[in-house]
């Protein structure tokens, strides 16, 4: 039997950016327009093969953060990789990125973070211009433009994160 490496991944981001939808698209290949707010955390499982190695990803879909709710660091504990999910149609969601990144790096030092600019299918409402992208670049994290609805870059995003994780462990 091939060795299966189990890893914990966290989805972090402001509320209603599409974290749950991304997970659903990735795990079940389903997308639903209906908005369901996540309370606490929802955990999904997906087996993924990257570079001939099998990974069992336990994806912790953590509830969205807003000005009233803070990110609960205990959910992050032990994670091997984090997605910082942002909404490309809501500029306000970008404002929190920096703060969230700080929390993540505080609790998970050295753990790879991949930024996701979600809802790319809503091209008419897309708000990200050059200046915003520059700001994101300043954070120093790799970002991908994704869409849970069309599935654009979803698989690739997970693959990218897992690859970064393997590099990370290789380095350590």
């Amino acid at each position: 039997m091939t060795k299966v490496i189990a890893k914990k991944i966290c989805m972090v981001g402001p509320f209603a950016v599409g974290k749950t939808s991304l997970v659903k698209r990735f795990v079940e290949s389903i997308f639903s327009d209906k908005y369901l707010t996540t309370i606490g955390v929802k955990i999904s499982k997906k087996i993924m093969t990257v570079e001939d190695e099998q990974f069992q990803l336990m994806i912790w879909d953590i509830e969205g953060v807003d000005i009233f709710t803070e990110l609960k660091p205990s959910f992050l504990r032990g994670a091997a990789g984090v997605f910082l999910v942002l909404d490309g149609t809501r500029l306000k969601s970008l404002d929190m990125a920096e703060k969230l990144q700080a929390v993540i790096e505080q609790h998970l030092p050295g753990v790879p973070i991949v930024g996701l600019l979600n809802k790319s299918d809503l091209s008419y409402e897309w708000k990200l211009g050059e200046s915003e992208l520059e700001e994101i670049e300043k954070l120093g994290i790799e970002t991908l433009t994704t869409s849970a609805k069309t599935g654009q870059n979803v698989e690739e995003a997970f693959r990218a994160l897992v690859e970064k994780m393997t590099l990370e462990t290789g380095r350590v």
Partner: protein
Amino acid sequence: MEDCEASEGLSGEGRTSTKLKGADESVEDNNYLKLRQLLLGDDYASALNRYISKEEDAERVAKVLAKAIHLSNQEDASLGDALAPVVDQAIGRSIEDNPQRITNIIFPIMGPAIRKAVSNALTEMIQSLNTLLEQSLTLSSLNWRVKAWRSGIPYAQYVLLQTVKYRVEQVFLVHHETGLLLHSVTAKEVVAQDPELVSSMLTAISDFVSDSFSASDDALRADETLERIRFGQLELLLFAGPHAILALAVRGNASDELTSKAHRVIESIHERYAYLLAKFDGDRSPFDEADSLLSECLISQKVAQAPKRKPWLAICVLVAAFSYFCVQQFNVYQHEGLLEDLENNIRQEKGYVVLEFKQDDTSVSIEVLRSPESRLPDVVIEESNTNFNKGTDNSTFIKIDIKDTVVHFGPLPKPVPLSQPKAKTENELYRDLVARVESSTFYFEPKATQLTQPGLDKIPTLINDVKTLEHMTKRFGIADLQIIIMGFADNLGTEYGNKTVSQKRADTIRSMLVANGIASNIMIAWGVGNIDHASMAEKSQRRVNILVTPKLLQTDLDSETGLDSDPRPNDGALK
């Protein structure tokens, strides 16, 4: 200077060995030798020896080896790790060299172990059989089926729920830090959810609870962990160690035994996998070995004996009903036997003639005739009744009603019962008929073979009587009715003539009877000739007599009377 000396000393020592082996000694070397001797004195030889000889080394090490091992053990487990392969190899070699030895050592351990295993397996089998029997056909099983159907659970699962006090359905070993599942085992017949998701969710819930309710101080929080979650009949027990959490999904109420076992298991897991747990990077394969440890927690405790009570009641009722039925049957049988005995007793009682003996369910009525000197009927019944009373109380319900008539029988106590008159008359009639037929004598004129008028007048009666005889014997199934018609002659004339004439006289009567419809095959005509005494009148000698056999319809009845009635013609026939 010192440095220089030290280096020189070192180089000198380094050369000692070469010098000892070497053949030529330089002057410088000699100087060193002297120096050494000066420094070490007499100990030089032994010091040199000690340096070269391995034996002394061994001796020295032997002296401190035990203590060294002891110290090393106290410090850490590295010695054990280092020795493990050696010990392993040594044991392997030892077994290979002398298997008998290891057999002898293991034998006393193996025997009881095997016996225990076998008896456990047997007990388990018997228990499961018992449970199956208990649950397959009882009222409660029907009840459970209905309940299982209503709650939408498979019947087998419902039975488990009912019969098991608690049962560990799943055991999870969860990595504390990441919430990843290290290993899990599931009990048989349990429908398990994805254990990986369960373990992650468990960690999440545990985190959530401690986030929400615990002290904010992180140091304190480390000690406080979620210990149990209960919903419905299922309880999750969590036993946290520093690196891993053992979670048990238990249905029912877990016992202390289970809790202490779980503690032991999580402790030994930490002991065994401490390093792996601390450096866990997602590779779970090493934890597959923990399977047996986790399986130890898959225990269950059955409900104590509760369902067993019910059948006892049913069995008692059944046994009672059956024994009641048996007693009843026995009573009826005994009762009938006793009644029969009573009847026999009364019938055999001296001077008693039973006219009637009637019995129904509740009463017996007896009617008897008895002689004055016989015992009183009450005494006779009392005698039989002692048996009755010995039997059961039921006899009291039987009313014995006896009606007796005292009759003076005369010298012979033999009764003439009313029950026999019919057969008697039939037989008497027959006997009378036989007598009448045999008494009819036909007289003849001298030398004549034809009947005179008075003789002819008797013929119709004779025919009638013989016909009746024939009829009666046929009715009673007597096949050997025979009528012998005997002709006689007087003492005058020749013997031949007398024989002929007597035959003719018999033939005459016979032919007349045949002509009147009497079967010829039952009649024999026999000319006897003259056999009478001279004293007999000549007129009486010329005659025809008739002899009938058998004399009676029922030969076994009253032979005295039958023989008494007509011995004479019989005698004549024999002569």
